[in-house]
Structure formats: C-alpha cells, structure tokens
C-alpha cells in the first residue's frame, strides 16, 4: 500500500526525491544492477544468471494476480507453456519472425516474446472472464484444470504439426532458428526490468489499492466502487502475459520446448517463491526468488536426493508459522520510529 510519506505522488516536484528515498526502489535498482554487474564481470555463469532471472520473472508475474489480488492460481504454469510453445512454433514455422529474433541485440527476440506473451494474454483474458468468477479453492482448481486441458491438447496437437521432425510434443529448434544466449539474456533482462516496473507501479497506484481491497473483501470492494471484475481480469491478463514472455524466452534459451513446461512443478516454484518472500509486495517475490534459488542450490548440494523433501517441509513451516513471508515478518517492526511496512512496500 502506498502509505507513509505524506508528500508521496500527491505534490509535484517532490516525486523524484521521494522515489530516491524509497528503499524499495533502491533495493530493486540494486537487484537489477546486481544482475548486470554479475553478467558483465562474469561473476556467475550465464546459465545461473538466466535461471535467477527466470525465477524472479515467474514470481513477479504470478504476484500480480496472487500477491495483489489474492487469487492463488495453481495452474499458472499453463501460461509458461503457452508462451513457450507460441514462441517456438512461431520461429519454427514463420521465417520472418525467425529472422527478426536475431536482430537488435536481443530486441528482436524480445519483440517475438511479446507476441508469444500476447498469445498467453489472450488466453488469460478470455478464460479469465470466466474462471475469475470463482473464488478461493475453486479458482485454484479451475486453473489447474486449465493447465491440464492445455497440456493434453498440446500433447495431442503438436506432434501432428510436423510428425517427422517433432518427438512427440517436444520441439527442438534447428540451428538457424535459435538465438545466441547473450542476446537472450538481453531480452530477458529487459523483460524483467519492465516486470519490476509494472509490479512497482501497481503497488503504488490506485489499481493496486483496488486489487488489495479485492484480496481483503471482494464484495465490500465492489460496493466501494472498485470495478472488481475488470481489475481481476486485467491483473490475470497481465500475469498471463508476463508469464508467457518469460516462458518464451526460457524456451528460446533452452533451444526448444516440450510439454514439461506445463508441469505443476513450475506453478509450485512460483507460489513457493511468493509465499517465502511475502504476498502482495514487490520485494517479496524478488527476495523470495533469490532465497529460493539459493535454497534450491544449497539443498541440492548438501542434501542431494532429499533436497526437495526438505523444501516441502520448509514451505509447510512458512505457511504455518510465517504466513506472511519474510517481508510480512519485517513489516511488523519499526526502526527508529519508522514503520518498516511503509518503506518496504
């Protein structure tokens, strides 16, 4: 919630100053710069950085509908899959797009990913109008149903598109259709920056206030004038769009796509990151994805085999004892009279 500083956004002139003083924004800028520095100085392998960005990307995407509006979409991997397949199929079959994706230092790939994201967004918008009438577990289950519908349909249809070349629903892009990983990084980086900006903007805007009201009590929000149906659809569509884009670039980075992109496991990743970090904030998914990435690695190195079992236990502990996640924990405290809640969000 945009609270705390009195002169926030309201009075002109102080706006820039305010933003500079906002620790949230500073942290976000810091994270973005961190990624750039790590990349340029070669502090981590490109693959590692891509993975971190991928995690952060899907967490921030789902955050728009789950974090702000409180609609837990357990089938959100569907948009990852839709974006991934849309991208790969486009550049596989459409030569001009395949050429475009290699232009402009990654800007081309970014643009094709936008197209793929739009495809995911179109699906989100059309089914969103229907499934967003459902609440709570029913919505969660409906999105799972959506995910499996798409999974099985792609499994059925994709092999038919080019039976000689495709292995089942798996498509491997030929050498002339892939993009150098440096460029994919650029495209992903740009996507992530936009995603951060969108999250931040939502957090600070009337739109975000409306979504939070929906999360708290949808009926009361509607009576208070929040156009709940429209807001939910917009949030869901945005979430679908960005998840689709990330799925597209993730697939491009991997040089192809298969049906595992629809796996509930990806939904699990997204939800866990948001829950660990803290629902309904911008920093939550960012911190959550960094922790998740580290945790994932750490557990994998130290407890191979049982690493994901431990992860499940950790998630249970978070849900039971720290339901608001890390940022939620911090927000309760004050430092020198300043409520952390006001500055962290």
């Amino acid at each position: 919630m945009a609270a705390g500083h009195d002169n926030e956004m309201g009075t002109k002139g102080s706006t820039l100053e305010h933003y500079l003083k906002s620790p949230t924004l500073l942290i976000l800028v810091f994270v973005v710069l961190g990624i750039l520095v790590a990349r340029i100085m070669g502090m981590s392998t490109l693959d590692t950085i891509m993975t971190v960005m991928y995690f952060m990307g899907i967490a921030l995407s789902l955050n728009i509908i789950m974090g702000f509006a409180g609609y837990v979409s357990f089938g959100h991997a569907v948009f990852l899959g839709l974006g991934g397949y849309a991208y790969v199929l486009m550049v596989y079959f459409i030569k001009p797009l395949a050429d475009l994706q290699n232009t402009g230092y990654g800007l081309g790939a970014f643009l094709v990913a936008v197209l793929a994201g739009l495809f995911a967004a179109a699906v989100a918008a059309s089914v969103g109008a229907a499934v967003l009438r459902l609440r709570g577990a029913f919505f969660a289950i409906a999105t799972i149903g959506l995910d499996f519908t798409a999974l099985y349909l792609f499994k059925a249809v994709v092999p038919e598109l080019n039976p000689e070349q495709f292995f089942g629903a798996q498509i491997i892009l030929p050498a002339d259709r892939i993009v150098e990983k440096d460029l994919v990084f650029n495209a992903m980086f740009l996507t992530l920056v936009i995603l951060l900006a969108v999250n931040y903007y939502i957090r600070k805007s009337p739109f975000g206030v409306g979504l939070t009201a929906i999360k708290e009590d949808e009926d009361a929000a509607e009576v208070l004038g929040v156009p709940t149906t429209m807001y939910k659809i917009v949030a869901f569509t945005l979430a679908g769009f960005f998840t689709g884009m990330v799925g597209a670039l993730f697939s491009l980075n991997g040089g192809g796509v298969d049906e595992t992109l629809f796996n509930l496991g990806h939904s699990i990743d997204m939800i866990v990151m948001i829950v660990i970090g803290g629902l309904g904030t911008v920093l939550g998914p960012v911190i959550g994805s960094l922790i998740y990435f580290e945790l994932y690695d750490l557990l994998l190195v130290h407890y191979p085999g049982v690493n994901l079992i431990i992860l499940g236990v950790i998630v249970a502990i978070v849900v039971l004892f720290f339901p608001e996640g890390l940022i939620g924990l911090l927000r309760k405290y004050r430092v020198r009279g300043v409520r952390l809640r006001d500055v962290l969000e």
Partner: protein
Amino acid sequence: MEEILVVDGVTKRFGGLVANNKVSFSMRRGEILGLIGPNGAGKTTLFNVITGVYRPDEGRVIFKGEDITGKPPHVITRKGIAKTHQIVKPFNDMTVLENAMVGALFGKRAHQITIGQAKEIARRSLELVGLADKADEFAVKLTLRQKKMLELARALSAEPELLLLDEVLAGLNPKEIEEALEIIKKVKVERDLSIIMIEHVMHAVMNIADRIVVLHFGWKIAEGTPEEVANNPEVITAYLGDPRYALRFVKRKGGGE
C-alpha cells in the same frame, strides 16, 4: 425540490421468499429518510437493490433522473451513492487510513485523483468520524464501534450525494449514539448530503429523520413524518409482533423518551 432518488415498484425475491414487494417511494435532495421495519422486513435487501448488489426482479431505481436499475455496484457508487454495511466489512490487513482511501479512490471522483489526494480525503473523513488517531492501525484491531465508524468514513470518502446507512447505531451505547447522530447531522450539512438510514434505535431515527418509510414482510406499510408513522395503527401492529421493539415503541408513545 428535486427528487434525488425514486424507487419504483421494486420486487426482489429469494426463491420463494419475497424480500421486497412492489416497494415504491421517492426522496428529495437534502432529506434524511428513515427506513424502519422489524427484523427480516427487507430493509438491507432494499439497500442492496439500490446499490446494485442485487438486481430487482421487477421495478426500477432512479437516481438523479437516471435509471440505474441493474447497474453494477461500482458504477452506482461512482454516480454518487455510498453505503455502509450492517455487518461490518473492514479490509482487515489494511490500515484504517488505507481503508478510507479505497473509498476516495473509487468513489465519486474515481480515476481523477491521485493517491496523495485520496489520502487527504480519507484523513478528513477519519477526522469527521473521530478515527483520526487510529489512522495507522490495522483495521482488524478496531473495536466494533470503531469498525462501524470506519464503515462511515469509507462511505464518506467516496464523496457521495446519497448516503445509505445500514444500522450504524446498532451496538452503540446511548452516549455513543448521541455522538454518532451529531456526526451524521454535521456531515449532512457540511457535505450537502441526502441520507437514508436503516435504524432500529427508534428514538434516534424519529429524532433525526424528516420522513420515514416502514417495511414489513417486504411490503411498504407506511410512509410519512415521524409523527404520522408513529401513530399509524398498522405500524404499531407490525412492531407489536416483534417483541424486541414493541416495548420501546410503547414507551415512546407514553411520552417517556
């Protein structure tokens, strides 16, 4: 004077139950209209029809000359009608100030004001209802009385022309009732409001309302000045059937207020 609201033959059914039965009345701008009736008479339902939460099975609702029947609640709110909930519905994990800001951001001037302006509007509403010192508390921490006042503050933040109050006095002690009535009178003048209030606290509504509409089993059984209504035999019978209010009513008639 101009009619701000016309309710015209509104019928609302829930399955076999007719919660509002051909209810008609109109109110002038600047009026305070009391809406009374025994439990289950259909008062809250009528509010929900006016604010668009329910679509009536028959009849129309006309606000400032415009037919708003069946429009979604958020549209109606933006046209200038705000409502408090009988069963309070605070946004628990938001602060009191933020609660009121929602009212401002999506009320009469939705999409025309900034977060900063909304905050100012919200602050003023909180001051009006006496919650200013709680602005930074989480709504979940408020007492029931404070939550009722928060309902009022949220509604006021929407800057409505017509305010619908659903039992804002219920559960308050006599002193608090007096204070709340003062607040309502004050905002009415200050904001040039028209108000419909559902109330079971009989002396309060008799005292403050210009006119009163009485519902019983979904029907409108009486309408008029407080005096007229209080002496209407049908109304008395209706209330005598409801032991909760019979006593108070009789007491009042005996002039013991």
